[in-house]
């Protein structure tokens, strides 16, 4: 019975987290999140300076404006501000970046014949499950770690005013948005949950690349095709299906992993359905192509 400490999993995890593709992708995503901190901190400093210059009462004391909570950490970190380029860029490329670290690995080993060796030594179940687990974790890491880094760095510069319900207009959240209640009671937990959600969805998406390895001939196809498929689904859903089906829920992961509501609300069932569908596809592919075919 394979366990987390099996040599195969350890080997795959080592490969996943120590290859050049992982390191470059992680560096790029972290760079994006650090740039976002710089941009948000510099623009906030300018606006606060303007506010200090012009917003005084009769006694010369700066006025406290209603939008102060909206300039807090929870609205200004990468996931909290949907008006910045960095946010759009990060969440758009997240589903591409997640596949870069390790989704190509199975195809590479299939080409070299290494997979046959590994299957003979540790068994199909252990080998394939380790491969999927490593792809999941590395994919999740390149999305979740930069988000976490951004949140921590932004917290170093911007005060974390507790979100106030009276200023909900600025937060871009409706009452139906997932974990909305937490945002006002435990905002840090809300942020952490959305970082986790982004990581889990990205990790799950990265495993689709591993499944594609059974059908593709080029490693880059295993990275880019799932991404373009997601973009295609995003177009279909947001341009036609949600109107045609009159569905108020956002089904596209590109939008529903963002902690701010963009076009429509998200729903926990949608997330579970996506994860179940991805797991089902992976299981079917491994069963048909990995289990029943001769590795040699």
């Amino acid at each position, binding site marked *: 019975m394979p366990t987390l400490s099996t040599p195969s999993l350890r080997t795959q995890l080592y490969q996943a987290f120590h290859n050049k*593709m992982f390191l*470059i992708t992680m560096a*790029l995503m972290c760079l994006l999140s650090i740039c976002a901190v710089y941009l948000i901190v510099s623009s906030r400093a300018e606006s606060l300076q303007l506010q200090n210059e012009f917003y005084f009462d009769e006694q010369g004391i700066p006025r406290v404006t209603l939008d102060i909570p909206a300039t807090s950490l929870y609205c200004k970190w990468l996931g909290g501000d*949907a*008006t*910045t*380029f960095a*946010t*759009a*860029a990060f969440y*758009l*490329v997240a589903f*591409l*970046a997640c596949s*870069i670290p390790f989704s190509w690995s199975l195809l590479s080993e299939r080409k070299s014949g290494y997979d046959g060796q590994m299957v003979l030594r540790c068994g199909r179940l252990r080998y394939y499950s380790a491969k999927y687990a490593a792809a999941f974790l590395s994919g999740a890491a390149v999305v979740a770690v930069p988000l976490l880094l951004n949140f921590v760095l932004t917290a170093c510069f911007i005060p974390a005013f507790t979100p106030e319900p009276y200023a909900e207009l*600025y937060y*871009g959240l409706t009452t139906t948005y997932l974990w909305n209640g937490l945002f006002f009671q435990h905002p840090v937990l809300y942020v952490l949950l959305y970082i986790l959600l982004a990581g889990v969805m990205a990790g799950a998406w990265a495993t689709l690349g591993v499944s594609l390895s059974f059908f593709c001939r*080029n490693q*880059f*196809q295993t*990275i*880019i095709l799932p991404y*373009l498929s997601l*973009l*295609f689904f*995003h*177009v*279909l859903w*947001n*341009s*036609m299906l949600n*109107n*045609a089906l009159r569905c108020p829920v956002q089904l596209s992961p590109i939008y529903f992993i963002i902690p*701010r509501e*963009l*076009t429509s609300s998200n729903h926990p069932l949608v997330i579970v359905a996506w994860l179940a569908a991805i797991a089902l596809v992976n299981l079917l592919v491994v069963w048909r192509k990995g289990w029943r075919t001769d590795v040699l």
Partner: protein
Amino acid sequence: MYCKFLWFDVRQGLLRCWKKLLAACAVMLCLLLLHCLLIYTHNTTLPPSEAALSFTTGDLLASVLCGIPPYDPVAQQPFLFPAIWLLFFLLLLYQVLLYPMENLNGIGQTMLMLSKSRRVWWLSKCSWCALYVLVYFALFYALAALLTLAAGGEVTLALSSYYPSLWEVRNELQPPPWDTLPFFLLAPCIACALALAQATATLWMRPIFAFFASCLYWLASSYFLSPLLLGNYAMMQRIQTMVSDGLPCLSGLVSAALLCVCCLALGCWRSARMDILTFDY
């Protein structure tokens, strides 16, 4: 020599890849059908007294290539990226991404050594890339024309007078009729220039990171209104022939031409210095 190289590239990278183009056609058809469905649903909900809307080929093409109006972050509205427009161009960039490097990693290496000219190899790859973009756009335009015919619309590049009302145009629209031909000629030129830029980038970095950079560049084009971000010229809603403060088509054409020349020169310089024997993309 150049012609032999180019013919080889056309056979290997275009004629043999008909399945890729077929898949692209399927995606394009879906994108075009979205507009047909929009008009169809509008017509089904019309009261009997009102005339049903029809559409032209220009409307169909514009539904994919219109993009979004310039984004204003001060308005505090969330930025929604132009997904249809982005998908159309990213699909093209993906399709032209791999062939040059696959070629250099395979038979192209032998051909390159036998020909003794790296410059010819690179020029042939650039020509192939430009040709692929033209074929991609030709298919797109042809599909739109066929779909218009099938739906009983008018095959013309002119836009219907109602069409821009579907856009969220914030700037002032030029008075109709709009001259759309320059835009429909400019869009493939911009795509060609940026595909060449991506191909040139693959001489320095792995193709996947060149594609990654392309994604960010095209997204930046939709977020920032700047003549330096050439993607702006590939959005109908940002062109001077459509909106009063739009970008002039001529400057887009000049920028695209300049970028193509730079890519050719940089590619020649880089390919002459690359170690092709140990090259692994």
